[in-house]
Structures are given as C-alpha cells and as structure tokens.
C-alpha cells in the first residue's frame, strides 16, 4: 500500500517531571520498528498519561513536561496534525463508539478520508476484527450497537489495515474480552512498534521492554532478555488455561476441573 507518510525509524521519549516536579530518572527512551513495550504500574501511576504524551507528540506542553521526537527530531506540524501523515494510532480504553453509522459506512468513510482506493480494505478490516472477537461482526451492524469487544476489535483491525500506522498504542487491550494473543500475533506479523498499557502479566512478560510507572513518572525501564523466559512459558500456560476456562464458562459449561481441553 502506498502512503505519503515518512518512513519511521525511531521514536524518542525525553524525560519530563514527576508529580512533585522532580526530573524523571532517565534521559530518553528510544522505540524502533517492531519493538514491543509494556507500561505497567498501579492505577493513577501515569500510564495513560505516558501514552497520551506519545499520541499528541508532547513538546513540554502536557502535565508531564515530556517531549517526543520522531526520527531524531521534533516532528513537523503536518505529521502531528494530518491524520494521514501521522505515524501513530491509539486504541483507547473506551469501548464505545459514538459514530451513528453502520460498520461498512464507518470504515468506508475512514478509507475515503485517507484517500485510499483499495476496495477490499473494508472487508479485510472486518475479517481481521472477527479474528479478535467471539461475536461475529457484519458490515450492516451499527457502530453504536457493537459490544465493547466488537468495538475494540474493529478499532484494532482498523489501525492495522486502514490507518496502517507503524506505531500502535493500546490502552489495556486485555479488558474488552477479546482474544489478546491473536491481537498481539497479528500486530507482530504486521511489524508494528507496539506500546501496551497493561495490567496483564502475560502481555507484560511478552514484550521486549517493560516500563514501570509511579507518581506520574517512569520509575524503571526493564529489558529482561532471556532471564524471564521460563517465567513467560509458565505464565503462557496459566494464561492458556484461564482463556480456555473463560471460553468454557462463556459457552455455558459446568466447570468441574480446569484442565485445558
């Protein structure tokens, strides 16, 4: 797909200040294509503010005072303001869509606004969204009538297929009851740089870098490498069990044991 967007090489986050006005204890964080990052910390620790800074390309004008550069320099205005040139898509925690349109109308309008002429993008988006959710989405459904999981699935699929941005920010992907492992797999296949705000141990351990937040600031930047491999394998199997259990409960089974079927 051709895109007028400049090639993405790196995203740099320059430190800001804590809630007490002290400088954060890092100089900068660099994110490159294909990187996976998770942002963890208790509620109110500044996780959403962190990805909001990235989303709006903060230049010291948000509460955190952080600054965001792209490809090593301050982003040009059109790259921030023109959505078709913006390299970032954010999927918020919100699982409600306010557009009074059918799924097909909504996606087609988005395709039109990006001046893309590929006619099967709408179908492709719905097909991918349906991989993320157990409840089938059809083009004639109203956006406002979709469930939280369906809405989230459409937004994630849209970010991959239509927005097709090299950087995707996901705020608590695990929340809406969608198949998070499918989401992560599809995002990885698409070679996106992904930043997850998450409370989910499995998602947190899956990412290459883990940023720990507290008091509105970055407290730690961890790159565990291979030292968490065993833990990840164990968490993956626990998670698979929980997911399988969830599907069984959803389909009305009586649960007498939690073995994976």
């Amino acid at each position, binding site marked *: 797909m051709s895109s007028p967007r400049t090639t993405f090489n790196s995203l740099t986050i320059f430190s800001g200040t804590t809630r007490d006005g002290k400088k954060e204890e890092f100089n900068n964080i660099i994110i490159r294509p294909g990187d996976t990052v998770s942002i963890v910390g208790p509620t109110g620790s500044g996780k959403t503010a962190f990805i909001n800074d990235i989303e709006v390309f903060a230049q010291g*004008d948000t509460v955190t005072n952080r600054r965001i550069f792209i490809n090593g320099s301050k982003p040009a205005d059109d790259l921030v303001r023109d959505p078709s040139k913006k390299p970032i898509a*954010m999927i918020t925690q919100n699982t409600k869509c*306010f*557009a009074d349109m059918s799924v097909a109308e909504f996606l087609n*309008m988005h395709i039109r606004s990006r001046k893309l002429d590929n006619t099967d993008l709408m179908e492709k988006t719905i097909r991918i969204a349906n991989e993320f959710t157990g409840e089938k989405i059809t083009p004639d459904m109203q956006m406002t009538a979709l469930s939280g999981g369906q809405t989230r699935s459409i937004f994630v699929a849209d970010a991959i297929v239509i927005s097709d941005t090299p950087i995707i920010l996901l705020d608590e992907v695990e929340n809406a009851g969608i198949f998070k492992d499918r989401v992560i797999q599809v995002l990885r296949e698409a070679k996106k740089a992904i930043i997850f705000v998450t409370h989910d141990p499995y998602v947190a351990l899956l990412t290459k870098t883990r940023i720990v937040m507290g008091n509105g600031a970055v407290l730690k930047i961890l790159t565990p490498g291979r030292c968490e491999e065993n833990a990840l394998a164990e968490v993956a199997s626990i998670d698979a069990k929980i997911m399988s259990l969830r599907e069984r409960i959803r389909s009305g089974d009586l649960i007498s044991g939690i073995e994976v079927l």
Partner: protein
Amino acid sequence: MNVRMIVIAGPPSAGKTAVVKQIIRNIPDPKKVAYFKIDVVQAWEDEELAAEFGIPTKKVYSGDMCPDHMGIMVIRDAMCWAEEIGADYLLYESAGLCLRCTPYTKNSLGICVISAVSGTHAPMKMAPMIALADVAVVTKIDLISQAEKEVFRERIREVAPGIDIIETNAIQGTGMRYLKKVIEAMTPSVSETDTLRGVPPLGVCTICIGKKDIGWQEHFGVIRKLDAPDCIYRGE
C-alpha cells in the same frame, strides 16, 4: 483600538469554558484578557474565571430574548468596555443554543467548539456555526480512538473543507499549542465597528420575547394578517 476579539461558539457542554481557560493560560499576560459571556438564565463562568485568573469579566442574561440576538446588540459596547479597561483580548463566549447562528464578526477570530463524542451527525446539524468559523476545536479527543477521530474530522471537512481543525483534551490542554499560534497571529481591530459573517435566522418579534396573546393586533415586529399578501413590519 487595541482589542482583538475572539468569539467562542458551540453547543452546551462541548467544553467552551475549558477551551477559554486554556486560551487565557496561553496568553503571555493573562491580565490583558477581558471575558464576556451571554447566557439565557444561568451562567457562572464569569465568576469562575475572575476567581481563577483575576481578569475582568462581564455577563448578560438574555432571558426571553435569543442570546445571539442579544449578543449582536451588545457586543460593540462590550468591545468598547474591553478597550476602556485596557484589555488586549476580548473573549466572547456565546450561550450555545439552537446552533444555527453564527455570531462571528469579520474582524474577530471565530472558534467553534465541538465535542468529539457528540456523534457523527453533529457537524452537519451545526453546519452554519462550523462553516463560518476560522477554527474548529474538537474537545474530549482522549475519549475516542484513532479511526473515530479521522471519521469525525472528515465529517467536519464535509461542512467546512478549509477549516483549521484542532483536536484537544481541553482539561489537559493537549493540542492547544496550535490554537496559541493562531491567536498570536491576530492583529487588533481597527475600530469597534464590524459586521457579521452570516445572516442569523433570529426571527425576533414580541412572540419570541414571551408575549403569549394571539392575533397580530397584539404584536410588534414582523407580523402577518390572514388576508394580507405578505408579512409587514410593525414598530412599537
């Protein structure tokens, strides 16, 4: 005259006052801002802003009269008031009611504030308010995802292809740096005389201001007799 007038229009609860606060914060000397509010029955914004920023404020209740009609009548006086007290900026916030009016004047900066969660048909419903503005400030942008942002933007563009769109979380002030640039580029009004950018459908007459009697005999303004060929104007 040294005053630059900024007209802030938009429906109720869109976040007009939150935008006003961000504008004041971004002006190098906030003390040089005067704020003027027109509302129908109740408004507290003037007291809130005076307390928070220590700026001169004024408000007018329009009561039974259309607040935009009232605005058109009094805004010239308000400009003179702002000039008299030495303000560089006059922020004029409209009541935000029927959304068909466009209180923007040719020499002012017209800002239309719209909430990102007001639904995709909202821009079409308030078309005149958006079409004649210089800037559309889209608030509550943090509540919607990327695709929805772009679709909402497209809906605004359908109504006003050339309008400057600024997306913001007005509580946090994100994106406001672009509005700041627009405001910094303003030049003072030459004088207090100015004209409206559009013709508002006000329909002002004695019925509009609350007189309930039936029959043209009881009314002034634009009236109509049953067998008359057209409307006539009847003065008091």
